[in-house]
């Protein structure tokens, strides 16, 4: 077990590994859902409270100020490359280094984006895309997690299905889009199924591996206390697998937006993929970039959200 590798002295609380106070309150919802590990495990006291008893208010404030300074410096370093890119995007077209027709300055694209926002076009497309992504993503969670638990838990099922899973996992969703279209038409069902397919793999495979790689000693220990298979699964396998499952969910979240865009470019009358392709073909280049910026920001925010949720569920893994 990891326990032996790192002997943490008492009092060394790894507070930097724990979510900050704000995140703490925000995520009270999803945390409460995890009733499998028992409500006691989430006493919240491992969070900010434990900090208080190890440091006086003075040192604590000082530590916080230091960490703020450090955070600011880190933020500056982290965003430097992005700021450079944005500046180049603005300046290079104006200097004539890039063709203004194909790459208009950033500000023009932002203005175009603002106009799209005001006119209601952007929200409409955004809504269409989000609805499809979330539907496919949500269905993938609902279907792939139970399936993965089943496959991971029953070794014969796993042995039987693994070659098939390997085959499908390596079959790009994009390659199957024509098949989906053939069978399901070009409506919403196809796009949602497409997202569902693409999102299922990371969730399914991570869930299987999460269940299969539970520390055998924990299972032995629980068995020695007389736990039967059902309670063993509920009290040991499932909570132990939660962090791995969430890694899959986070990956699937990123996929849900990436692949949807492709589907919307092939056959759709709404959605950000459609917007980007349509504006390009009608030569509304700043609008096209506005669509691209929207999709990047959306993807980024979605990922940040999922990372935060993942951290909430894996605090105990932060050794």
């Amino acid at each position, binding site marked *: 077990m990891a326990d032996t590798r790192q002997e943490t002295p008492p009092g060394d609380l790894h507070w930097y590994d724990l979510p900050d106070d704000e995140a703490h309150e925000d995520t009270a919802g999803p945390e409460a859902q995890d009733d499998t590990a028992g409500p006691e495990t989430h006493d919240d*006291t491992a969070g900010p409270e434990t900090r208080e008893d190890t440091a006086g208010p003075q040192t604590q404030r000082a530590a916080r100020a230091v960490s703020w300074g450090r955070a600011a410096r880190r933020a500056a370093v982290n965003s430097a490359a992005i700021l450079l890119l944005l500046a180049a995007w603005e300046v290079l077209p104006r200097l004539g280094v890039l063709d203004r027709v194909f790459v208009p300055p950033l500000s023009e694209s932002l203005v175009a984006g603002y106009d799209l926002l005001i006119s209601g076009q952007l929200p409409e497309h955004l809504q269409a895309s989000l609805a499809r992504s979330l539907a496919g993503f949500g269905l993938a969670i609902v279907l792939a997690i139970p399936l993965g638990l089943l496959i991971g838990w029953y070794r014969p099922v796993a042995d039987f299905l693994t070659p098939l899973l390997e085959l499908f996992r390596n079959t790009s969703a994009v390659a199957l889009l024509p098949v989906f279209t053939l069978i399901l038409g070009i409506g919403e069902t196809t796009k949602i199924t497409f997202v569902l397919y693409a999102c299922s793999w990371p969730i399914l495979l991570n869930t299987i591996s999460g269940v299969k790689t539970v520390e055998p000693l924990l299972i032995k220990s*629980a068995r020695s*206390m007389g736990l039967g298979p059902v309670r063993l699964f509920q009290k040991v396998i499932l909570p132990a697998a939660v962090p791995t499952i969430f890694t899959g969910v986070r990956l699937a979240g990123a996929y849900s937006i990436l692949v949807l865009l492709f589907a919307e470019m092939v056959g759709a009358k709404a959605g950000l993929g459609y917007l980007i392709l349509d504006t390009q073909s009608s030569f509304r280049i700043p609008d096209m970039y506005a669509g691209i910026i929207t999709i990047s920001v959306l993807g980024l925010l979605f990922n940040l959200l999922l990372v935060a949720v993942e951290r909430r569920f894996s605090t105990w893994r932060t050794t």
Partner: protein
Amino acid sequence: MSRIGIRNVTKTFPVRDAGEPFTALSGVDLDVREGEFLTLVGPSGCGKSTLLDLVAGLTPPTAGEIVIDGAPVTGPGLDRGIVFQQYALFPWRTAQANVEFGLEAKAAPRKERARRAREHLALVGLTGFEDRYPHELSGGMRQRVAIARSLAFDPDVLLMDEPFAALDAQTRESLQEELLRVWQHTGKTVIFITHGIDEAVYLGERVAVMTSRPGRIKEVVEIAFDSREGDLRADPVFGEYRHHVWKLLRDEVAAAQVQEREVAISHG
């Protein structure tokens, strides 16, 4: 009166790609008295841990039988608690929730669980650490939590598989002392596996010495001190017992090393 009877127990494991099964234990006979602290020493690979698994009911013997209070062991149960070398704490549970685990298995009411868990954490000196997660505790504290967890559901027998082997010498010594205190306080029957001769002699009322593989009981040494007060390890009697156990073990360790070399050669 004997609490645990190990009667002519043999355990073999099937070996993949080999006709001969692997014999871990062969004809082990051992009686453990009620409330006794018995330590078990033997060369590495002699089947000490296998024997413990058998007593725990995690795996059945190939031949022979194990009886507890006259009834044969048929599976794991809350009448026996195990403490592992690697603690085996559930990392997503706080110390308190870890100690409650066995009580949940026993279906104790929630308030009762919380109370008993707090009591047992206090017994091992961890009051104030109830809400810490295992990764926020030192190795010694983790093992205390594991001991508290095994005591909390009130088993008659405590099975300990080299519980202090992963700890530094100082922590080990203080935990040994505390374990003796807890044992005297609770009156449990303890089977304690170790590869440390000092530890075996210091803790055990009797020391069972095992042979090299296939493991049998070579000799059971009665350890009797006039008094357990003071620095027991400095007592000349301690040195005599220590030397006696050391002599018993020496030949077995040598035999085990020869075995290991043979295995390595045949696999190489």
